[in-house]
């Protein structure tokens, strides 16, 4: 790697840094309980919870397991489960 003049960085560094390994608890989404309101997606500080066919799911490559989605879900459709390491 050579350094750029002026410390100019190209986009994509966040994508390269897979922060999923930082997780202690994993959010598990229960599609049967999910009503597709999207609150989890709005509150996710990483912006990695996305809608697919009216249901929501996270991207485990980047989810740090903060648990905000589970705390905010009005239907209790997200459970935080201890990761096995």
């Amino acid at each position: 790697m050579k350094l750029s003049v002026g410390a100019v960085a190209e986009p994509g560094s966040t994508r390269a840094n897979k922060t999923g390994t930082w997780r202690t608890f994993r959010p598990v989404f229960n599609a049967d309980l999910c009503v597709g309101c999207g609150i989890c997606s709005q509150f996710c500080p990483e912006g990695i919870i996305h809608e697919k066919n009216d249901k929501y799911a996270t991207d485990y490559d980047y989810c740090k397991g903060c648990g905000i989605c589970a705390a905010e879900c009005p239907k209790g459709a997200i459970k935080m489960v201890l990761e096995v390491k």
Partner: protein
Amino acid sequence: MKEIRIHGRGGQGSVTAAELLAVAAFEDGKYSQAFPSFGVERRGAPVTAFVRIGDQSIQLRSQISKPDYVIVQDPTLISVVDVASGIKPDGMVLVNTEKDAKSLNLSTRVKVRTVDATKIALDILGRPIVNTTLLGAFAGATGLIRMTSIEKAIRERFAGELGDKNVKAAKKAFDITGGKE
């Protein structure tokens, strides 16, 4: 002088572990120094903390590259960081994991000890904060620090029930790792 390197993740209390180890060592009548190597502080990001324990006043301030002991708070770090890097031949790596030492495949010939500190911490503290538990395990596995000093350091930092629980977790790990007072 003994040098200890602690690998953890932001929010796991690695820096507090280093601090408490230094306080406990001083309680034991030794000189001590603890300092963190911060990255960009974020919960979950890899962090390193260092402890020096000696019979004389410590003035060396470089980071520790040839540790006598390494404490790994989170086994997922093993795939990200060379935790055993530079460890002395008679050194020891203490890993928080439910697995046994062999299955960790650490790239080192030194002794590796494991303890399921996460389970102990969850059972007793109700949270996966393993730093105080690992201090008990470190005292038990190395005999370098007296458990009574670890207990005193914990109680100085955490008052009341929180202190009681942390001491209980540390003592349990101390016993499991074969610690003798």
